[in-house]
């Protein structure tokens, strides 16, 4: 391993752990305002959506809102399967199957 690689991994580890730990570290001295506490429940759905939608609508960084887009079809199938079944494993499996079926058949 080169010195540059050591520096990169040390730096990446430090910032990643720092971000994850910072609020936990000072938790005892931290009082969140009521409106902030209110906003916490929106965080998980907002982040998950913000990551997922572009990955599906713009796979490979190009707009593709058509039935020819296997990522879009997989997402829609897993969405329907998930809402209907409320089962995580089934949601993922249905999406993966739809994706590979689309690639084979389209």
């Amino acid at each position, binding site marked *: *391993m*080169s010195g*540059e*690689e050591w520096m*990169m*991994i040390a*730096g*990446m*580890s430090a*910032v*990643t*752990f720092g*971000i*994850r*730990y*910072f*609020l*936990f*570290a000072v*938790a005892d001295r*931290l009082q*969140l305002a009521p*409106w902030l506490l209110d906003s*916490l*429940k*929106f*965080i*998980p*759905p*907002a*982040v*998950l*959506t*913000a*990551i*997922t*939608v*572009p*990955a599906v*609508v*713009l*796979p490979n960084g190009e707009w593709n809102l058509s039935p020819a887009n*296997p*990522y879009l079809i*997989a*997402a829609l199938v*897993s*969405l329907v399967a*998930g809402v209907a079944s*409320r089962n*995580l*494993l089934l*949601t*993922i*499996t*249905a*999406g*993966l199957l739809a*994706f590979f079926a689309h*690639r084979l058949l389209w």
Partner: protein
Amino acid sequence: MNIESADPRARQRQELFAGVRDTAPLLLGAFPFGLIYGALAASSGLSATAAMLMAICVFAGSSQFIAIGLVAAHTPVAIIVFTTLIVNLRHMLYSATLLPYLRHLPQKWRIPLAFWLTDETFAVTIHRFQRDDDSPYKHWYQLGSSLAMYLNWQFWCLLGLLLGTRIPDAQAWGLDVAMPVTFIGMLIPFVKSKPVAVCVLTAGAASLLTWQLPYKLGILVATFAGITAGLLAQRISNRLINQSDCR
């Protein structure tokens, strides 16, 4: 109360295994990424030791991928570290959400749980914390989820590195579809009210307007747009409820 639930060790173990069990479906979603990571690292010029050490010490899928891409493009170390910082900022939102549930724990718990905090473990664990029972061992559930994600990720990264260049064109297989379908599965249980639905629709629309921002900043901007819209929607719906109460 039965005898088993009176024994703290048995209850801790129960929580731990429940965390592993509820995370199991997400392990499926992580495996193609580990494999692709290993295969890509082999062709990026990063040494196999460094690629594995990165998985062990950084343990953050998206920034590991981005780092490999930047290494292949001969990007200076400082830029790679800075990009990691920006891409991982969302984890601070996660720790803020978990804060009320973990603040009573000693640092020897907070440190490892922070190190192992991922999108997946967060999304699974927050439901456990929010469930309406007074179990004092819910952090054991998060530990179970964390360990499952960590060991699973290391295993697939190692396998990807060992197979390395022998996986031809791993990226072209489209295995990256595992991420969106996994995230959709994680997203659905959160959408239980109209304000959350408004939040999701806004975050989705905003993500399509901001995806071109550098360092994946669009994720953060879209997240804040979604949170703001959700708060506004909640305020409006509360006001409507109050009005109908007064009538």
